[in-house]
């Protein structure tokens, strides 16, 4: 039987019949990043030579809009792509969004624990950005943010993950990166921001906080972000347009680990007494 058929739809029609219905030649479009998705399922094995020829001479098109399965496939594909982009991509800047940041940060922290290689988190807040919004309007503000996002992407390496954290805050995860390398990247970005057209006019600059997560850091993801955040505020409080850092070493200096306890001191000195006496009894 020379029929084009779709699985389980229980209906069949010849290709010639299908293609003769001009009103069915409507391509199904998907809006995934502007690309157009066209779907055509024909079981070629079931076609006659005549039907094959028609198929070969026909641009891709949806054969049967009324077919439930096909519609469902296309709809699901569209929906998934849309959900995926909604969930992980920031609409304005097309950077990753904060939801993706949280997912990926866990992955990178796990990688650090496994490999022993530090990773760094860059937290960026623009100084005086509000000026642009207030005096030139939000469209101009958005245009500037898009420019910053592009600049940021250019300043990091391909392995780094750049996210818009919200408003005028940006974050980058730098996998397998020591603090001094992160500082270099941050400084590069700080300089690049000052070169964005309009930045100097509005006195817009970047306050950048960096936190380093080492294999012995006690942080969870939330604390890691907080560390980068507090480094960023430190940079802001020092006057902005600068880079500040946080690592467990600073935590140590700030909070102070327990020093030698009285019990430990006592143990050390009791031991000392015995060797001292030993030495003295030896007549040395």
């Amino acid at each position, binding site marked *: 039987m020379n029929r084009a058929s779709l699985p389980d739809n229980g209906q069949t029609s010849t290709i010639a019949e299908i293609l003769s219905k001009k009103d069915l030649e409507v391509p199904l479009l998907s809006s995934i990043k502007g690309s157009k998705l066209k779907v055509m399922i024909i079981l070629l094995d079931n076609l006659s030579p005549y039907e094959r020829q028609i198929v070969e001479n026909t641009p891709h098109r949806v054969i049967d809009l009324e077919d439930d399965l096909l519609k469902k496939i296309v709809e699901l594909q569209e929906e998934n792509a849309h959900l995926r982009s909604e969930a992980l991509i920031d609409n304005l800047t097309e950077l990753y969004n904060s939801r993706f940041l949280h997912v990926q940060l866990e992955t990178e922290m796990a990688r650090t624990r496994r490999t022993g290689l530090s990773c760094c988190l860059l937290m960026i807040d623009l100084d005086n950005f509000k000026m642009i919004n207030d005096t030139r309007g939000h469209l101009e503000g958005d245009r500037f943010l898009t420019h910053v996002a592009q600049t940021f992407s250019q300043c990091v390496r391909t392995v780094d993950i750049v996210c818009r954290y919200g408003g005028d805050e940006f974050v980058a995860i730098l996998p397998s990166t020591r*603090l001094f390398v992160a*500082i270099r990247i941050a400084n590069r970005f700080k300089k690049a921001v000052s070169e964005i057209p309009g930045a100097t006019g509005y006195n817009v600059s970047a306050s950048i906080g960096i936190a380093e997560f080492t294999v012995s850091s006690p942080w969870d993801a939330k604390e890691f972000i907080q560390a980068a955040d507090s480094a960023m505020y430190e940079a802001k409080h020092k006057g902005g347009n600068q880079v500040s850092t946080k690592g467990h070493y600073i935590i140590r200096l700030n909070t102070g680990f327990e020093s030698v306890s009285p019990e430990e001191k006592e143990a*050390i000195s009791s*031991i*000392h007494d015995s*060797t*001292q006496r030993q*030495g003295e009894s030896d007549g040395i």
Partner: protein
Amino acid sequence: MEYKHPVITSISSGKGGVGKTFVSVNIGAYLAHQGKKVLIVDCDLGLANIDVMLGVNPRFTLKEVVFGDTDINDVAIQTKHGFDFVPASSGAAEMVQLMYEDIEKIKEALGKLAQQYDLVLLDTGAGISESVLQFNLFANKNVIILNRELTSLTDAYATIKVIYQTFGRDSFNIIVNTARNEDEAKKIFNHIDSICNRFLGFPLHYLGYIVYDEVVPRSIMKQEVLISHQNQSAPAINCSSIAAQMVKWQ
């Protein structure tokens, strides 16, 4: 250029005046004598004194690496004792308050330079400043020098504890300096070892001891190393056997 995988060893004590520099220089000389390519780095960034002990007057120091554009290869100098030496500056106040970034810069430069050596000895300063801790982290072997004095034992223990708590390091090699004899050295080691076991939960490694002998202060006064002038003395033999232990680390 031949690239090696150097054993980078930090030498710390907590308390000053325990003999870090003496041990670094003399063990370095024996390591070099055993055919190893050895680099000694004066990591006492504020009050450097290996240059004094060696009687050399360096043109560049680590200070010029941090604040100038001097290449670390131009800072390293050859010594007559067979090892190379990276000096630091003495009395440079700005080197005491180094930023983390500056220490990282030093570590990065040293990391490159170290590729040319079998063993690198980092003579860290006294105390547990940020730079002392960072050099201990940079090293892949940590040596702690102590003597029988209560202050030395307490500071050595405090150093071990802080490095353990900060970086999770739990492998420390102990040298007992100015011991009366081997028995006393072992006793001192056993005691500090038992305290580590009891309070921190890990044992220490006994690397060796150096017996007290008048040839030591005399050699320091004369800016000599034992291997050149007192090779048969008891402390020289002690240094030699510690060096022999460290060669096995490679």
